[in-house]
């Protein structure tokens, strides 16, 4: 041990200090210590001088002192806030915080300050315990979240794979159903079976397409084929698609479209948007209700509203309806079918077009309105808003036509779509009309060889010869038959289509989907029956 000769160098005042104060040689040999320290370790001023500081620490404290504190002191001559335990004679360790300085000048002495850290250590132990618990909880939570995310990813991948795999058999079924239909010959049972299979397979295909689109969106793989689109076109195409369902449910479709609105978008995807909104609206609207599509320019945007008189929604689920796999039915009563993907797809697709979609409802039983807002492509010459002559409204007052009878009126209906044809037939026969149906222009002309109906009602989009050619052929027949009043039915409601129809020889043009009442009124009018009943 270094003989320092400064044994009594500690001022007496330090005996009253609230901390331990020790002067020691670099190897820890104690030269002097104040009273608080001596009391901690059970030594008097004399006996303390035979001891070394590390010996007065617990085993753990000794290891820490030798492996950390002493090397640091020797290298940098100072350590601060080291946690150590002093071994008290009672056996209870005393937690202390140690600060120490090792002087460079001779005599090289270490000055050590030790603070009782009992409370602090207890607090630190609590903190460590709390931290461990928190870490464990975080870890558990993270694992659970990872697991959930992984499961969700697996599900999305599975959906993508499954829907992709389903498309192949679906297209095979569809193809063969069409073959079967063509081969049915005169057997109505087989034709009917084939048609039912075809129709349901198409529906199934659409559901699978929705699934596939959703997984593409989730995977960020959905691409838009963007071009300038006259917005009315995809809406009309969508209307045409849902028309049979609307007719079947007895839901009236009304449209107020503006043909001059151009947007930048993918026509197929826009049609999908409106098909989803419309089929949803039709699905949730009870018989006798109506679905109205409106279009309005608001500044640089166009707002397309799809408004129904259906069951409506509670305010709290208005936002949720755009979430995946969410059915907006009233809880428990699942009256409608679907995957709950349609509206989620609508939102994704609309947002991909730079637009937005919101749902409004005055509450349950009070109908719903979905408004799609899309940016409009600026035209060189400003287009007038909502030109009245471009509007095809189908909104006959129900009461006025409720009693209208078509008794004694003969009608020839030309429509290639069987569901639509059956519907037209039913609507007209229900009012007493004698209805003959034809599936094509040539069939219709054949019928007209031998009979002269009061009114001809023809679809425009017929296979082979279309409705324009049919009416031209009829007018060329001459005689009484050649003058038969004719009504054109078409999903194309643009002004030029209407003009084309009238130029070709039709007296009236009705846009699909046609409300039953309007059809009845129109037929009655052309048959000269309006004056009778209204008078």
């Amino acid at each position, binding site marked *: 041990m270094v003989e320092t000769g400064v044994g009594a160098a500690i001022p007496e005042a330090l005996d009253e200090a609230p901390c331990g104060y020790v002067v020691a040689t670099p190897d820890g040999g104690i030269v002097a210590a104040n009273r608080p320290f001596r009391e901690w370790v059970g030594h008097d001023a004399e006996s303390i001088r035979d001891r070394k500081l590390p010996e007065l620490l617990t*085993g753990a404290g000794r290891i820490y002192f*030798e492996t950390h504190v002493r*090397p640091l002191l020797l290298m*940098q001559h100072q350590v601060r*806030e080291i946690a150590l335990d002093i071994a008290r004679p009672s056996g209870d360790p005393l937690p202390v915080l140690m600060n120490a300085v090792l002087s460079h000048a001779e005599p090289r002495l270490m000055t050590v300050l030790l603070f009782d850290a009992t409370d602090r250590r207890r607090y630190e132990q609590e903190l460590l315990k709390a931290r461990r618990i928190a870490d464990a909880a975080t870890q558990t939570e993270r694992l659970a979240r990872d697991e959930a995310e992984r499961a969700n990813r697996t599900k999305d991948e599975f959906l993508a794979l499954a829907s992709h795999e389903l498309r192949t058999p679906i297209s095979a079924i569809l193809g063969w159903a069409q073959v079967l239909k063509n081969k049915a010959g005169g057997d109505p049972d087989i034709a009917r079976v084939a048609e039912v299979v075809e129709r349901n397979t198409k529906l199934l295909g659409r559901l699978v397409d929705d699934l596939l689109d959703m997984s593409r969106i989730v995977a960020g793989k959905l691409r838009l084929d963007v071009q300038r689109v006259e917005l009315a076109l995809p809406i009309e195409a969508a209307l045409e698609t849902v028309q049979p369902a609307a007719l079947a449910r007895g839901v009236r479709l009304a449209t107020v479209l503006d043909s001059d609105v151009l947007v930048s978008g993918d026509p197929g995807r826009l049609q999908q948007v409106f098909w989803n909104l419309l089929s949803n609206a039709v699905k949730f609207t009870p018989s006798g209700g109506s679905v109205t599509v409106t279009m309005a320019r608001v500044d640089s945007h166009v707002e397309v509203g799809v408004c129904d008189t259906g069951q409506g929604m509670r305010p709290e689920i208005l936002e949720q309806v755009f979430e995946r796999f969410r059915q907006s039915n009233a809880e428990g009563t699942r009256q409608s079918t679907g995957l709950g993907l349609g509206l989620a797809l609508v939102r994704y697709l609309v947002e991909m077009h730079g637009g937005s979609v919101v749902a409004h409802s005055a509450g349950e039983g009070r109908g719903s309105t979905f408004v799609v807002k899309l940016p409009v492509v600026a035209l060189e010459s400003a287009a007038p808003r909502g030109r009245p002559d471009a509007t095809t409204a189908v909104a006959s007052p129900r009461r006025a036509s409720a009693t209208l009878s078509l008794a004694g009126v003969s009608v020839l209906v030309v429509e290639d779509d069987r569901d639509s044809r059956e519907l037209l037939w039913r609507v007209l026969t229900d009012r007493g009309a004698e209805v003959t149906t034809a599936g094509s222009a040539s069939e219709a002309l054949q019928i007209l060889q031998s009979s002269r109906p009061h009114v001809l009602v023809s679809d425009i989009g017929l296979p082979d010869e279309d409705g324009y050619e049919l009416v031209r052929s009829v007018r060329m027949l001459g005689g009484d038959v050649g003058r038969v009043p004719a009504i054109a039915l078409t999903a194309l409601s643009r002004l030029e289509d209407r003009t084309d129809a009238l130029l070709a020889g039709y007296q009236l043009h009705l846009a699909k989907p046609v409300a039953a009442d309007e059809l009845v009124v129109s037929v009655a009018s052309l048959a000269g029956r309006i004056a009778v009943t209204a008078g």
Partner: protein
Amino acid sequence: MLRWPDAIASRLHRSVLIDLRRNNVRVVGTGSRTLVFAHGYGCDQNMWRLLLPQFENDYRIVLFDYVGHGQSDASAFSPARYTTLDGYADDVIGICDALQLRDAIFVGHSVSAMIGVLAARRRPELFAALIMLGPSPRYIDDEGYVGGFKREDIEGLLESLDANHLGWSSQMAPVIMANADRPELGEELFNSFCRTHPEVAKHFARVTFLSDNRDDLDSVKIPTLVVQSSDDVIAGEAVGRYVHERIPTSRYAHIEATGHCPHLSAPRETGEAMRVFLQALEDGTLATNG
């Protein structure tokens, strides 16, 4: 002449870099012989700073930090790899291979003395001799063996590590402060002394102080120097003698310097003991149990 394909060469190169970067390897000094200095528990390669001036003119000197210590790549630490001291010995072997060392002299402080034993047993060609400063093959007392500690002491140490790292992690700077009267120690260097990653430190403490390498001592067949200081509370004199007795090819050098870190507290005396041994090694005059 045979040439290795570039792909193999570059892969080799990359693995060399990985070993060297992982352990923050530094090579200083000049000489035909190489000394590999391995720091002990609780510190890093800085602890050799006072000893180096005595050797760097005659030896090539390799310094490194164990993973999680000093400037090593702490992200390379994995509890699985370093479950036992063998994992640390693997790192030593990796460093020697990266530097293509043969017949080097391994200088290990404290626990590193045992890491050197493990590395030499696995790859005898790497080391021509071992120098052990304050070695201990087992810290906990056992029947007929006095290591100096009880198991509770080690548990207590692990707890106090928690307490210290709690302080260190929240306020690292106050622990190590710049010292005005040693201007040559810049602040940057100051703050780098003996920094250890808390988790690694605790893990290394557990592996070190719960290890028992007594039987591994029998594998040592090369000249070995046991440097034993006075009053070493970590590895006492009885322990140093035990190591010496179990290695027939060892020399025992007792020095007056006190404490567990004689290379810091008495670098000159420690260096001198090493020089005597190294000279005898060169001269081929090492007698067993000398």
